[in-house]
C-alpha cells in the first residue's frame, strides 16, 4: 500500500495544463508512442474485466500488439479481481512490473490503494471512492463495531500521487439507472488521459456491453470524460471533497445486549460454552454457565437457541439515533 511517491509535491502534479502551455487546459494529453501499461483492479462483480477488454480492443484498434492477463478466482464472492493490459508495437510479458503502470484504475477504493506501488511515478491514478468492505475487515462482529479498512481519504491519496482522480463513480452511474456502469464512468475518466478518438472509445464500449445497456454506458462514459476534463482544468475537483474521513464515527449506535442465564435451569451441558463463536461463556465451579466476557458478546443468539434447557435469554435493544 506504500506509494512510491513519498514526498508531497516532489513531482509535477499534473501532466496536462501545468507543463504544456501550448495545449489548452482540459485537452487530453498525447499517449506515449511506445504503448502503455494499464492496471485495472477491483472486486468481483464490478466489471474489471469489461474495462480491460475495452482498453485492449481500443489499443488493438490503434494498431498495437496487446497482451492481457487477469486473476478473477474469487470474483463471485466479492474477492479481488485484477487485470493487466499491456500494449505497444511489440509486447512480450503479459504482466506489469511494480512501478511500471501508466494508469491504475480502481473500481474499489481499498483495492486502488493496495496496488499503488504498481503505478509509475508520473502515472495516472483513477479510483471510485465507493468502498466495498470485505468480511475479514470486520474483525469484531458486534453491530456497529469499527471496521479495519483503509482510512485514507480521496484528498490524502490524490495529494500523494502525481496525477490522481478520485470520484464517486458509482453514484454517477446510479444516476443513469445502474450502479454497475461505474466501470464505464471510470473509462470516461481514463479517456481524458489517453488521446485516442472519443468515437473509437464509444465504438469498443458498445461492442463490449449488452445491447440493452448501451445507452446507460454511453451516458456513463460521457459523464466520466466530462468530469475528468473539468478536473484537469481545476485540480480542486480531482477528488470527492465531501468525504473528509473514513474513520468510524465515535459512539456508533451499538445495540444494548442483555444476556440472562437462569442458573436454576442450567444443567452444565457445556453446549453454549463450546458453541459460542466469541467464546464469551464459561462454566463456573458449580457447573453453571456464566457470561465471562460480556463485552465480546455480539448477541448472536446461538447459545440461546442451542441451550437444551432454555436457560439463556438474550434481548437486544436498539438505541434511538441521537440527533446532534
Amino acid at each position, binding site marked *: 500500500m506504500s506509494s512510491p511517491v513519498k514526498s508531497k509535491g516532489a513531482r509535477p502534479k499534473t501532466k496536462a495544463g501545468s507543463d504544456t502551455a501550448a495545449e489548452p487546459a482540459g485537452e487530453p494529453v498525447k499517449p506515449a508512442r511506445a504503448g502503455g501499461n494499464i492496471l485495472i483492479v477491483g472486486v468481483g462483480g464490478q466489471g474489471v474485466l469489461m474495462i480491460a477488454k475495452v482498453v485492449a480492443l481500443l489499443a488493438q484498434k490503434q494498431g498495437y500488439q496487446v497482451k492481457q492477463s487477469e486473476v478473477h478466482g474469487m470474483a463471485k464472492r466479492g474477492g479481488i479481481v485484477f487485470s493487466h493490459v499491456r500494449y505497444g508495437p511489440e509486447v512480450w510479458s503479459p504482466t506489469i512490473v511494480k512501478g511500471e503502470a501508466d494508469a491504475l484504475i480502481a473500481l474499489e477504493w481499498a483495492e486502488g490503494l493496495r496496488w499503488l506501488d504498481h503505478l509509475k511515478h508520473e502515472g495516472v491514478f483513477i479510483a471510485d471512492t465507493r468502498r466495498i468492505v470485505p468480511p475479514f475487515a470486520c474483525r469484531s462482529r458486534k453491530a456497529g463495531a469499527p471496521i479495519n479498512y483503509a482510512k485514507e481519504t480521496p484528498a490524502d491519496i490524490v495529494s500523494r500521487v502525481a496525477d490522481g482522480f478520485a470520484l464517486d463513480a458509482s453514484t454517477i452511474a446510479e444516476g443513469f439507472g445502474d450502479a454497475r456502469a461505474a466501470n464505464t464512468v471510470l473509462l470516461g475518466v481514463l479517456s481524458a488521459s489517453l488521446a485516442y478518438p472519443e468515437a473509437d472509445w464509444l465504438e469498443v464500449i458498445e461492442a463490449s456491453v449488452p445491447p440493452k445497456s448501451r445507452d446507460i454506458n454511453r451516458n456513463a462514459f460521457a459523464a466520466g470524460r466530462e468530469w475528468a476534463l473539468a478536473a484537469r482544468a481545476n485540480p480542486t475537483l480531482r477528488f470527492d471533497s465531501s468525504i473528509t474521513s473514513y474513520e468510524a464515527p465515535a459512539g456508533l449506535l451499538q445495540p444494548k445486549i442483555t444476556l440472562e442465564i437462569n442458573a*436454576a*435451569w442450567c*444443567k*452444565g*451441558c*457445556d*453446549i453454549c*460454552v*463450546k*458453541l459460542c463463536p466469541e467464546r464469551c461463556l464459561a462454566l463456573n465451579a458449580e457447573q453453571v454457565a456464566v457470561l465471562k466476557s460480556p463485552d465480546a458478546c455480539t448477541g448472536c443468539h446461538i447459545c440461546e*437457541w*442451542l*441451550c*437444551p*434447557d*432454555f*436457560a439463556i*435469554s438474550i*434481548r437486544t435493544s436498539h438505541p434511538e439515533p441521537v440527533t446532534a
Partner: protein
Amino acid sequence: MNEMVRTLEPFEIKDYLRLQLMPHFMCPGCGHGIALRALLWAVHELAIDKNKLAIVSGIGCSGRVGAYIDANTFHTTHGRPLAFATGLKLARPDLTVVVITGDGDCLAIGGNHLIHACRRNLDLTCLMLNNEVYGMTGGQVSPTTSANRLTTTTPGGNAEPTFDACKLAEAAGASFVGREVTRQAMALKNVIRDGIAHPGFSFIEAISDCTEIYGRKNDLGESPEMILSQKSDMRPEAFGNVADEPFRPNRLVTGILAKQARPEYGAAYRDYAVRVKSKPGRPR
C-alpha cells in the same frame, strides 16, 4: 409469511412453557430440548393461539417433551400418537394438531400408523425426534440406529440396516417431508413452521442427540462434540472428512425434502360424511 414474522413480538419461550414443571427432566445436553424450542418458536411465528394448539405425543423422552408445552397436550400410548391425532383432527378441524414422537415410537411400534397417516394425508404435523435409540428405556436398538453402533440390545454393534424415515414418509404419501439437525436450530424452526403451515400431512425428522445413553455408550463425546459433529456429518468434505469420522455414517440431506400436491383427507372425509348422511334409504 415473512411480513407477519417481522411484526411479531420477540419470541419468549416462557410464554409457551408450563413453568411449574421446569426445569424439564431431560438429561444435560439432550437434543430434544433444542427441538422443543424450535417447535415453540415456529408456533410463535405462525401466531397460533395456544388454545387452538393440540400436541399429541407418544412415549419415550421425545413423548415426554409435549408435557412442558402450555397448550392442549395428550400423552398417548406407545406408537399411537398419530392414531389419536387423526381422530382429534377429524373431530376438531379447527385445531392445529402436532404430533411429537421418537424414532422408536414412530418407526418401530408405530410404523404402521405412520405409513397410513402419510397415505391419508390428513392435515397433521408429525415431528419425529430421531436420536437413533430408545432413550427412555435405557438405550435399546431402534430402526434408525446406525450400523455398528452399540446399544443394550446390540452389544456387539448393530448389524441391521436402518430406515430412512423421510424416504419412507414420502413414498407412503406424506405431502410435506423435511429434515433438519438440532445444530441448525433456526433452520429446524423454519422447517417445522413450513410443515405446520402446509395443508396436508407433514413429516419432519429432527436429528437429535441422546447424549447420556447413546453418546456415552458409543464414545461420541460430550454434548458439544455430539452437536458439532451433526454438522460435520452434513458436509463431511468441509471438515476434513476422514480425520473426524462423522457421528452418523450416512450423509444427511436436510431442508424440505419433498412436497407433493395431494387431496387433504379432512376435507375429503367431511364431503363423504355429508354425502352419506344425505343419501335416502340408508340406515341412520
